[in-house]
């Protein structure tokens, strides 16, 4: 028997499976498969693959959408975070090894990112437990901010976290790295929950906002322009993220001018 129809190609077999076949070829392909069991077996295998993929991952689309994807909040923070993310990708590309943007986390990672987050975590844990002397210099004392800024070599603003019911208790100086100091601000809620902001100059690679929790304590961590920030508090990720974003936004506005000043002082050959 002479086949009038052109033979079925492999491309057509895929198109058949994917519903992309032109309507006028459907019958020809079906006939072809009847006559060619090997091709029929391949088509069946492809369909089984698709079923397996859908079975494995399909349920994820039925999960409730986690609160971190709330568009309103993302849009508010968006411009800055995505710029950071882009910078982090670039930094990861340039720097190669070390703790990059998608590191597995800062407690199990390695290198400078791990060091800074771990030290912030230790400081947070140590001083939130202090009843009488959680801080060295009280909020409201005019030298608090200039003192810490001078010692860490970075003009650190004191973020206003009133909207979260967080009142600044004060700050303290801690050993940083490479002979430098680190600053710790402590905030407290009316019910006595404590949050800290840890800040120091650091060579850790640029990093977007990252969250890790260890027991009851959670931290958001990021590095920008060689300044590392760690915002720690009770391990309630959604809440802590809002606090961290507020801190970021308030620091960001300051940093625009801050980095310019630093560039100028670096250009003058400062230490």
């Amino acid at each position, binding site marked *: 028997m002479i086949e009038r129809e052109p033979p079925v190609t492999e491309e057509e077999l*895929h198109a058949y499976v*994917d519903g992309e076949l032109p309507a006028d070829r459907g019958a020809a392909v079906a006939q072809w498969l009847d006559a060619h069991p090997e091709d029929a077996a391949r088509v069946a295998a492809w369909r089984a693959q698709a079923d397996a993929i859908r079975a494995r991952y399909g349920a*994820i*689309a039925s999960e409730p959408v986690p609160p971190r994807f709330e568009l309103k909040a*993302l849009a508010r923070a968006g*411009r800055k975070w995505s710029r950071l993310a882009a910078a982090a*990708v670039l930094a990861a590309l340039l720097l190669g*090894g070390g703790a990059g943007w998608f590191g*597995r986390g800062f407690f199990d990672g390695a290198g400078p990112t791990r060091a800074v987050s771990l030290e912030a975590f230790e400081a947070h844990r140590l001083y939130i437990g202090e009843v009488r002397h959680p801080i060295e210099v009280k909020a409201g004392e005019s030298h608090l901010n200039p003192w810490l800024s001078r010692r860490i070599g970075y003009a650190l603003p004191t973020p206003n976290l009133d909207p979260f019911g967080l009142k600044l208790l004060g700050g303290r100086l801690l050993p940083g790295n490479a002979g430098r100091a680190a600053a710790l601000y402590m905030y407290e809620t009316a019910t006595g929950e404590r949050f800290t902001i840890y800040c120091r100059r650091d060579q850790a690679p640029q990093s977007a906002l990252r969250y890790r929790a260890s027991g009851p304590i959670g931290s958001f961590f990021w590095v920008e322009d060689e300044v590392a920030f760690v915002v720690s508090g009770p391990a309630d990720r959604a809440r802590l993220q809002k606090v961290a974003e507020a801190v970021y936004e308030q620091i960001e506005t300051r940093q625009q001018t801050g980095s310019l000043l630093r560039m100028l002082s670096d250009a003058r050959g400062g230490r």
Partner: protein
Amino acid sequence: MSGFRQGIQATIPALRRYARALTRDAEAADDLVQDTLVRALRSEHLFHGGDIRSWLYTILTNLNRNRLRSLARRPALTPIEDDDAADSSGPEAGGRDIERALASLVDDQRVALLLVVMEGLSYREVAEVQGVPIGTVMSRLARARAQIKAYLDGERPALRRVK
């Protein structure tokens, strides 16, 4: 909420599914989705109609490519064992096999296959997402399917179908 935001909102579940299958890492997947959403929201003014879903898949696919590049530059720390451990309690006995088979693919092939069979995009839409001609999408698809079949046949000769 604007139509634009509604469109994004409605696509989040599918983006999470796609990202998970792409990365096979729940945490990295949700980070990718978040970065995708942030970028999309920021670029609202660049979106001139068309299929918002395809656009979001495009952003996510590109961000994942960046991610893979940065991972490739780093020491081999990616804890594959972690993923396995996390999934060992999963209900799907065959899920691990297909997961490993997907992991054995070249990224471009994996993207093409997932977008077609899981996300239900047309060849034309996938061509737009990947920025290549339709013929390239089809050959990626063909190679992906051949590779997965070879992987599954080699790995588990007895396992003919996965329920």
